[in-house]
């Protein structure tokens, strides 16, 4: 059963909750109150809907990818989140949280970013709402996503390199949370995925579910399969949630198998992890026998995360969504293939979804499949070019 909202302890079944330092707890509770009130307020929805249509460019189209469909022997449709303003689904959440920040009377925003898409989307919302913006980004990600770093700075944000850990998304989330522990009175943390302590996973899901709601209206007949990449899991949650429990619709979340599950260098928190507390929520995570968080690995900075949103953990246990994984190499092949057959360069994250579809083409033969094309691949072109040598 899909849950409309988590229980009073912020749990989706056994997952979620609020494992946060006490200093943050009052802010989390205030945020829950502010979000609940705003989400019940028609004027918040009309302001948000107006922005989503005139600023973000929603609804995003659903494109029938005929050439690759013919090649694969399936009926493949792409939900074009890559065509949303700033080039990914992340803007759905940041515009909504930006509006909420203004409503809460806070003037400073912090965010974490992996691939840089959420950082860019947050910097964009902050420019729009005239908010001070600080984005934490791992130094390894700064290196592989240089274009997005410049875009954030162009938009007036300050990008702070995070040098702890492996210098990737996990470390950026931790750095943002540490900032928030100190700055909580004046600052809102625009978290970029359905992760973190309650109410974030619920709130971000509510802000992203517009993807699946649109898709329901756009297709005359429900698809057989909906596929989306899963790092923290916000684009997948956004497209899956309205379909969870619908008969005849199979939902497939694709995690990063990195260099191969067997190498231990992957980001498959649901597939290979175990329940634990990461970044304030009980969820599946990559950890050692003593509960130390392990480093994830993925070619895609957005999937390079050792945890996942707690509602995905709930969906996994309840068998409402199937979670699979593909390797870096498979994702790169898919990246090229979409470029040459459809003239679309997908984000490496989205390429993971396509890679699974390509691998499973035979078993999917004749079915209608929707891929959430969560972001565009411009940010990844340089990295892929480097691989091609």
């Amino acid at each position, binding site marked *: 059963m899909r849950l409309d909202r988590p229980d009073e*302890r912020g749990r989706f079944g056994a997952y979620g*909750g*609020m*494992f*946060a*330092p*006490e*200093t*943050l*707890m*009052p*802010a989390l509770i205030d945020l829950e109150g502010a979000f609940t009130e705003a989400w019940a307020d028609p004027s918040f929805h009309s302001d948000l809907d107006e922005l989503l249509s005139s600023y973000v460019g929603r609804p995003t189209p659903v494109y029938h990818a005929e050439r690759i469909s013919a090649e694969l022997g399936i009926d493949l449709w792409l939900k074009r989140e890559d065509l949303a303003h700033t080039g990914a689904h992340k803007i759905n959440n940041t515009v909504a949280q930006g509006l909420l920040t203004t409503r809460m009377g806070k003037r400073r925003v912090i965010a974490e970013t992996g691939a840089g898409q959420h950082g860019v989307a947050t910097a964009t919302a902050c420019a729009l709402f005239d908010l001070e913006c600080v984005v934490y980004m791992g130094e390894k990600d700064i290196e592989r996503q240089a274009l997005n770093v410049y875009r954030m700075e162009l938009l007036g944000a300050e990008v702070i390199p995070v040098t*702890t*850990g492996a210098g990737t998304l*996990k470390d950026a989330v*931790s750095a943002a*949370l*540490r900032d928030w*522990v*100190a700055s*909580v*009175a004046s600052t809102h943390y625009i978290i970029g995925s359905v992760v973190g302590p309650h109410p974030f996973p619920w709130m971000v899901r509510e802000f992203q579910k517009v993807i699946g709601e649109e898709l329901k209206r756009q297709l005359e007949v429900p698809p057989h399969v909906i596929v989306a990449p899963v790092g923290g899991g916000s684009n997948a949650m956004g497209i899956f949630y309205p379909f969870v429990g619908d008969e005849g619709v199979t939902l497939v979340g694709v995690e990063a198998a990195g260099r191969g599950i067997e190498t231990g260098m992957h980001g498959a928190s649901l597939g290979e992890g175990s*329940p*634990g*507390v*990461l*970044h*304030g929520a009980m969820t599946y995570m990559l*950890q050692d*026998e*003593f*509960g*130390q*968080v392990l480093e994830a690995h993925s070619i895609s900075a957005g999937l390079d995360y050792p945890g996942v949103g707690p509602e995905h953990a709930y969906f996994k246990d309840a068998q409402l969504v199937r979670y699979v994984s593909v390797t870096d190499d498979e994702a790169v092949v898919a990246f090229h293939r979409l470029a040459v057959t459809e003239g679309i360069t997908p984000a490496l994250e989205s390429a993971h979804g396509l890679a699974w579809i390509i691998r499973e083409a035979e078993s999917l033969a004749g079915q209608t499949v929707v891929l959430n094309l969560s972001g565009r691949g411009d940010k990844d072109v340089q990295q892929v070019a480097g691989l091609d040598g």
Partner: protein
Amino acid sequence: MGEAMRETGRDRLNAMFAAMRASGRAALLPYLTAAIPTFEASVRLFKAMADAGADGFEVGIPYADPLMDGPVIMRAGRQALDAGVTVPVALDLVARVVEETGKPVLAMTYVNPVLRRGIERFFNEVATTGAVGLIIADLPADEAVPFLEAASATGLGMSLFVAPTTDDARLQAALDLDPAFIYAIAEVGVTGERDDASSNTERMAARIRERSDTPIVFGVGISTPDQAAAAGRHGDGVIVGSAIVRRVIDAGSAAEAESAVASFVGDIAAALA
């Protein structure tokens, strides 16, 4: 009935707070990450601090993603993890510190290592070391019940947190859970050294005292003898962490670390007297 009632960790912790109240000063509780720079040198550091006037200790079990800690304690934790200081090694160190110093020792960790081990097993293992209690940095009162039950079953004294941001309802809810002491977060922010003494301690202590006699231990942002003395006027105990850890990780040798830490702890003890 079988064997006589044994004194629990919480009893010994209470005894320490009672003795400190009787002597009219706050307990000095230095924090140090377990087993840095090495296991044996770490034991010597705790002994040196005991000799210099520490009344008890908080021993940090290193954690990979410590959300409540600033750069100094993060670095120390990373150094310890890289040197192979797992949870069992850290608990061995706790046991040695208990044995060699005879002081009340609080183990400090984050919630995930406890959950991974199993709450009951983890608390049992901590109790076996002879520690008097446990501090779990990212565990708010809202999620604390199963942990408090384990504390009660093992006789360990567990703290709950109050921050400057905590409102009256949350403060009362924490006190209603009967923690062994309140860890009062003196500064909004993560652990680390600050230039000024906290302006929050007097008001926080008054708000707690108004409702309860539960011992109050101040921590976070207390890094000089003056700051410790200021916090000590309002609390039953004072935790000094980053300023001590920094002296250890910046020292050129274990011997240098020992003398730096002993002299610093001596200065704080004098300021609290």
